[in-house]
């Protein structure tokens, strides 16, 4: 930006809330020089700075790209509304935090798709950054717009705005895509040809090279490649060896507090438990662990480079990490003297681990969080959540006798086959947890029992056994929430519930097709943004957007799909097969559980990939 613009920015920053979000300059931020031969990439996080700076994936990609001589990566986030208005008034484009460069000047910009309700932010960020919102409107000078992350597994609602999606683990694919863009620019190819070149990168999906057709009933009739360069299906990328995979030894340390402001050690990727509602559990297969030695090395580097006072372990199921006790003991031994505390997610604490924890009392004793997900054993069997009431009560009794007095219980409502009895089971469980507390003599338990019951609205997601299932209608969800509210008016119990309208829109995007892109565009035109923030969600504008686009939310959210329906996301092969998912769906309806696949292989499909799966 030139001097005049920087001065206007300076004045703008003095009048917006939390200006520290917009200035960069954090410890370990990498400000690389823009010089010839360096391909420039803006990693865009479609939510606020505080959320973005809590995201591990961004830190991995940021570090990895910046370590390449021929590439550089800068960060950009969604501004809050006051900053957004200010940028527009002052004629300042959305810029990267490092060199304060307009997004439009980068060779490529990449969005991470963490949740559906951030999609409107992507459109606003493109527009603010001076990039035509629709792919079709972009010219030779415009950046290539990339997207990846979990929601890319159903890319179709964004097909009109994103030039290329990268499927699966991003470490290798990002570098390959950026280098392909570099080659295309160097060799003087047209944008359309660069996109065709990108389609050749394994795991890349270039929506412009495919065509979708629909039946009269609205379902997909065919989906086909229209170009020799575009293959089908797209196989997701898998990084098999996490010890060899890129991981940052230093990370930017925000001055202003992020939502999760600590060192995060990713100990494992993937999960074998097979909960039937869980998309991540299917998407991130196979299970891969980082070695304890590698984790010690990374932890030491990160503590030295950041000075963080807290470290946490990240994975889908930390209790399943093979060497958890050794890891926790080793980390505690290493960092006890430097005042770095280790925070663990709530997990089954077996005897050996308990010993390891009490060795050094360095583990932060915040409240205990447990996720039974459903209120009765029958429904927990339907969703294959292998937790029994006995397990749960044993865990909370243990916790209460150790001095915990705050328990959070997470549930979902609207799960397939759910009855009112299942919902009332949630209240019964909360009562039993309270009973477990009072069963401990007064002198031996901590004071101030607080049980928080949070109940999310179930959103059926692609690549889960419930991808065929209907979401409950709004009326039904409201009725169920009322029922639960009444049942949960118990002493010391707080009940939190989700806004069913937001979950309804989320469901439409989760399993949306190409026609949802127009709904998104219409919502963007109507000023929808920051939809994940309750104060900004505008249901009225969303409903207008649906009718302007001629789309029916019920078609996407509350419709039961046929076994053989062609899904928009069938273009992607995540490893787990549709046949396996259907078998799991049928077992679910019969409330049959499926064991952890490390005990018994059920043929989910991963064994097709060489070396992907232990069994």
């Amino acid at each position, binding site marked *: 930006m030139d001097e005049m613009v920087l*001065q206007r920015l*300076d*004045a703008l*920053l*003095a009048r917006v809330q939390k*200006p*520290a979000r917009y*200035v960069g*300059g*954090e*410890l370990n*931020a990498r400000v690389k020089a823009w010089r010839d031969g360096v391909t420039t990439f803006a990693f865009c996080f479609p939510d606020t700075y505080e959320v973005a700076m809590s995201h591990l994936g961004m830190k991995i990609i940021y570090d990895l790209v910046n370590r390449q001589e021929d590439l550089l990566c800068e960060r950009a986030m969604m501004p809050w509304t006051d900053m957004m208005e200010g940028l527009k008034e002052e004629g300042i484009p959305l810029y990267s935090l490092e060199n304060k460069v307009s997004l439009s000047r980068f060779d490529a910009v990449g969005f991470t798709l963490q949740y559906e309700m951030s999609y409107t932010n992507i459109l606003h960020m493109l527009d603010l950054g001076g990039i035509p919102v629709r792919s079709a409107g972009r010219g030779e000078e415009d950046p290539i717009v990339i997207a990846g992350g979990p929601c890319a597994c159903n890319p179709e609602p964004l097909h009109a705005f994103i030039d290329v999606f990268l499927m699966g683990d991003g470490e290798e694919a990002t570098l390959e895509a950026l280098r392909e863009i570099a080659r295309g620019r160097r060799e003087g190819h047209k944008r359309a040809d660069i996109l065709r070149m990108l389609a050749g990168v394994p795991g890349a999906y270039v929506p412009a090279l495919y065509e979708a057709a629909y039946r009269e009933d609205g379902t997909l009739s065919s989906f086909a490649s229209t170009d020799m360069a575009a293959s089908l299906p797209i196989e997701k990328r898998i990084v098999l060896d996490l010890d060899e995979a890129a991981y940052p030894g230093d990370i930017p*340390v925000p*001055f*202003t*507090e992020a939502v999760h402001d600590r060192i995060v050690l990713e100990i494992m990727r993937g999960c074998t438990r097979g909960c039937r509602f869980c998309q991540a559990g299917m998407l991130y297969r196979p299970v891969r662990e980082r070695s304890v030695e590698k984790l010690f090395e990374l932890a030491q580097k990160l*503590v*030295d*480079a*950041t*000075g*963080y*006072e807290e470290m946490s372990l990240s994975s889908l199921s930390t209790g399943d990490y093979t060497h958890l006790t050794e890891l926790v003991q080793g980390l505690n031994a290493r960092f006890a003297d*430097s*005042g*770095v*505390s280790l925070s663990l997610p709530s997990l089954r604490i077996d005897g050996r681990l308990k010993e390891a924890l009490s060795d050094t009392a360095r583990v*932060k*004793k915040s409240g205990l969080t447990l996720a039974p997900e459903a209120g009765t054993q029958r429904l927990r069997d339907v969703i294959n959540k292998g937790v029994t009431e006995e397990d749960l009560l044993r865990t909370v009794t243990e916790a209460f006798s150790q001095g915990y007095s705050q328990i959070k219980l997470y549930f979902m409502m609207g799960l397939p086959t759910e009855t009112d009895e299942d919902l009332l089971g949630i209240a019964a469980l909360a009562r039993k947890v309270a009973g477990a507390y009072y069963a401990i003599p007064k002198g031996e338990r901590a004071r101030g029992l607080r049980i928080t019951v949070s109940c999310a609205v179930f959103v059926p997601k692609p690549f889960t056994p419930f991808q065929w299932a209907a979401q409950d209608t709004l009326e039904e969800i409201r009725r169920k929430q009322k029922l639960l509210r009444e049942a949960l008016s118990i002493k010391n119990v707080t009940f939190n519930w989700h806004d069913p309208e937001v979950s309804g829109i989320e469901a439409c995007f989760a399993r949306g097709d190409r026609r949802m892109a127009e709904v998104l565009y219409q919502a963007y035109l109507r000023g929808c943004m920051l939809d994940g923030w309750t104060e900004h969600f505008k249901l009225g504008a969303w409903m207008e957007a649906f009718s302007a686009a001629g789309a029916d939310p019920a078609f996407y959210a509350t419709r039961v799909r046929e076994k053989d329906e062609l899904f928009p996301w069938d273009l992607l092969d995540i490893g787990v097969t549709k046949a396996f998912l259907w078998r799991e769906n049928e077992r679910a309806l019969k409330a049959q559980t499926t064991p952890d696949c490390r005990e018994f292989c059920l043929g989910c499909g991963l064994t097709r990939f060489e070396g992907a799966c232990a069994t």
Partner: protein
Amino acid sequence: MKMLLVFKKEHDLRFIGHLDLQRAMQRAIRRSGLPASFSQGFNPHIILSFAAPLAVGITGEREIAEIPLHLPVSPNDFLERLGRALPPGLVALEAIGQPDDVPAAMARLFAAQYAFSPRKGEEGCWQKLLEGLPAFLARESIPYIRRTKSGERPDDLRPGILNLLEKKGELWAALALNQHMTAKPDQLIASLAETAGIKAPLPCIRRMALLDSRFAPLEQV
């Protein structure tokens, strides 16, 4: 022993609030490996105190923090190690070793010296402000409404202005900053503008020094 640190908080960090600054300093101390003292309790943190919080938007030329150490360290060693660990925008300028019984800098603080310079585009209005200086200083009382957490109340700015003069087009002010009286730099500009009959400009503000009751910098014990 404890170490008195004189440091600079540069322009790029002017939006970093007091708590954020404290956290950044604690993390830098941890990175430096200096033998800092930890608080007791379940989540121990590095003990550190600042002489005076700096308002968001103002840069600090010679800010002061005190850091208790559980092992002796030479000031040069301290300065070098902390200097390497500080994030961009924070600069360690000077370190002075002190016995534990020296009164805390916070307790010795009496006033702060500020420098105000005009932003580009506001030079005209700035000139008017400077022209109004003699009339402003001649006033015996400068009433204003003080906004506090507990509400609004009338107050007088004049006794808090210990010194006010023009220096090469900049405005320099020594303003009271102690438990009995506090005059804030943005209020000074607002009152000056009111006296001059103009809209208050938004100058760049630097805090140049923290002073004790002798009007000597706090670091000169």
